[in-house]
């Protein structure tokens, strides 16, 4: 059926939490979480590379689990907790993952970085001491064309050590 023959879906109010703060938007059913973050809330830190669930650039945490925001309907997020790259740092300093990515070459063009960081955050929340093979599995859904992943793996391993309180 052609889009033009169908009435536009109405905008409905939708409230959820982004990076710990409540937000209220009004959006139509077809609006994805990705579109809501970038276009309704101006949180353009979350990127997109395909919008079909194939690249991982739009990864955010939804109730603590990494998801592809291009395949989540915004209205189904009502009442739930969303975390994006903008919420990673607490204050002016960097989160250990961010610092490690910046220092160890985990970010070249920086476009896959926000999604990569969110995948890494979920990993370290569940497993504080993953080995390199586990880290590679955890970022297996995040494509990067610049780094060859090696310095990303280095950065996540380093951040994990920092977060465990081990001397770097």
């Amino acid at each position: 059926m052609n889009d033009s023959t169908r009435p536009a879906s109405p905008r409905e109010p939708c409230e959820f939490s982004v990076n710990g703060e409540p937000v209220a938007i009004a959006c139509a059913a077809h609006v994805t979480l990705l579109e809501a973050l970038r276009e309704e809330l101006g949180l353009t830190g979350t990127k997109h590379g395909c919008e079909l669930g194939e690249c991982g650039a739009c990864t955010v945490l939804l109730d603590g689990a990494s998801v592809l925001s291009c395949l989540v309907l915004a209205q189904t997020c009502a009442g739930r907790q969303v975390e994006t790259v903008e919420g990673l740092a607490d204050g002016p300093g960097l989160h250990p993952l961010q610092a490690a990515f910046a220092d160890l070459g985990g970010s070249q063009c920086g476009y896959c970085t926000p999604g990569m960081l969110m995948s890494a955050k979920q990993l370290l929340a569940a497993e504080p001491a993953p080995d390199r093979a586990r880290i590679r599995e955890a970022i297996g859904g995040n494509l990067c064309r610049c780094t060859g992943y090696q310095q990303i793996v280095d950065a996540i391993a380093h951040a994990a050590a920092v977060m465990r309180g081990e001397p770097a």
Partner: protein
Amino acid sequence: MTARERYSVIGKARRRVDGRAKVLGQTRFADDLTLPRMVHAKLLRSPHPHAEIVRVDTSRAAAWPGVLLVLTGADFPIGYGILPVTPDEYPLARERVRYVGDPVAAVVARDERTAEAALAAIEVEYRPLRTIADAADALAHPEPRLHAYSEQGNIHRLQALEFGDVEEALAGADRVFEDLYFYQGSTHLPIEQHAALAALEPDGRLALWSSTQVPHYLHRMMARVLGRPAARVRIVACPNGGGFGGKTDLCNHEFVVARAAERLGRPVKICLTREEVFYMHRGRHPVTMRLRTGVTQDGRITGMHLQTLLDGGAYASYGVASVFYTGALQAMTYEIPRYKWEGCRTFTNKPPCGPKRGHGTPQPRFAQEVQLDRIAEALEKDPAELRLGIVAKPGSLSTNWFRIGSIGLAECIDEVVTRSGWRGKHRRLPQGRGVGIACGSYMSGVSHPIYRNAMPLSGVQILLDRSGQVTVFSGATEVGQGSDDVLAALVAEVLGIGTDDVRCVTGDTALTPVDLGSYSSRVTLMMGNAAIAAAERVRGQLAEAAAAKLETTTEAIVFAEGRVFRTDDPARALAFHEAVIAAEERFGTLGAVGSYTPPPHTALYKGGGIGPSPAYSYTACVVEVAVDEATGWVSVEKVWIAHDIGRTLNRTLAEGQVIGSVYMALGEALMEEQAFRRLPPKLSDALVHRAPSMLDYKSPTALDMPEVDVVLVEDPDPNGPFGAKEVGQGPLLPVMPALANAVYDAIGVRIDEVPVTPGKILRALERKARGEPARVGPEHFPDVPYPEPLFVPPPWEGGDGREIRREVKLR
């Protein structure tokens, strides 16, 4: 340029200057930008690979609720092309479409969904033409001709150059090897899809923010296409979310949103879908090659003859340069006394090919390095030793008259041989495991702009104020490679301050001096030299003022760690900002410019302008694989790579470029293909991209990528900034042939094609089992009407680098 042994900023592993913004998600890519009253554009693309446009009716779309503007080819009477010799593209097709995805019309609407919906209301009547599917098809079918300007039929360009009498050299060889190779096309696949935002600025100038690697070229061509004075056009290159050459061409959508913003007086944005990025392409050419090489029994090359056939796609893009690059850089790596190459680029009904990382060189490099492996085996020599015996000499001229500066290739080979344990592995690993070696060389920037002129290739401006703030302006474009960091690091090194003290303003034609763009690995060397020149000028002023304050001579002044002090009495010092104040008092407002023009080149023959570079990087690589003979599956166990970078500026970034090159190379070597489906011609004219998605176009994941051992070899080049050469492209080149050679070492079959797939390996193993040649690759090379080559004696046979008549014997 200052030669110093110890550096305080460069050479270290360091957080890049834009690193914080990137990890915070604060880097503003083109699609992250919004402006008040912004509206959105979508393009209607051709469903036919080849057709005449009979009629376009936009009336229904124009009346669509929410639609503000519909544009067609009629709105763009002036065409363009990245190379001035081939202006064969229009923002929107006029009269003819040449590939599935060729833009035909555009809709601008209040939102993207509305624009997309209204595309369906545009009526286009086409008259289909015969589809030209690939290079062989193009050679066999001169008609219908894609472009009237082509050299003949559907042959875009033919090129032939001969440096010394190659047949004579082959006749004098102990052995002559002749092999055919095919290198499949691939695309850049930056994770960021191309986006552009155009707006009229408050003063009425047109501004375009775009994910482009070439703001300067876009600036020139935008002015021409829009019919505006260039001074009334501003191009801002946003940080690119990956480029790899894919954003070095002028894009249809950039002109479309600019025209729309002009017409509407409102900001207009477009972001391509992933599928559209595959149609924009400009990626690796599929190339079929024949390579004949003569060698002596002791493993020296007597002469080499290379023929290439390129499938160029529907438009020229950088194609004239691409065909040159399949031949021009082949003679930079080893001593090749005589060399002949013939190239042919065809037009086909597919998205245009262009420059992808390594531009034109990975294909013949694959052929040569695989053939060298064959030669080594036939001569019963170790492939690493064979290469060490023929490495080109520093400070020499290549067969085709390009000046080689520093060359650390022998050291690179030694490093990877040692670190990989090559001697214990090659021909010694158990069946199913193997190692392969290969080398490569690449330019640190091409010595000419794409439009001929005598102006500098890069300019840098530096501004100091009494706060001690240092601002550097450069037209260079940050595509992720770290050009902002190079800029800050070089200025900081010269001025003895930290990179945090330098603010970079880059890639904005309204604010920054011209730099030609991020392509051909030119930025570090060219922008870098310009930056050093600018920084040294202001340092001279600072030194003079500080010397007066500190009661000494300018020669006795040192800049380090944010201080300016006497070398004989370091306690007598000024803080950097105090030195700036002293200089501002003395000279007035402080600023300087620096520019870079490469040294004149020696290749004076026609066509000798493509390939000369101020410096060449060198790389050697060993790949170890495990091959499962039951399935043909190749696992890359590890890669060792050594790259002669001249001088490392930021170790973290340099190693990242090398590993990233290995990654992109392994993708091409094993799985990536920009391949097309031709439907049965009796039933359909269709020729469509097989896999225009991130799911079906196979970019390796973190689980497919081995660990890479990187060595940076530093053989400073006199032409590089502090000796630095390129690192972004060269390291890709040896990886594909090293992998193919490793597969041979593991299971004894030759895959003379890229990608090396498990299916091809099983086929080669079957042939081996049947006693046939244990090989998969092209079986024949098509008849190509190469012209009589331009004959140039190589430097050691006399002449002055110009072509001569063949019968004239020098010496």
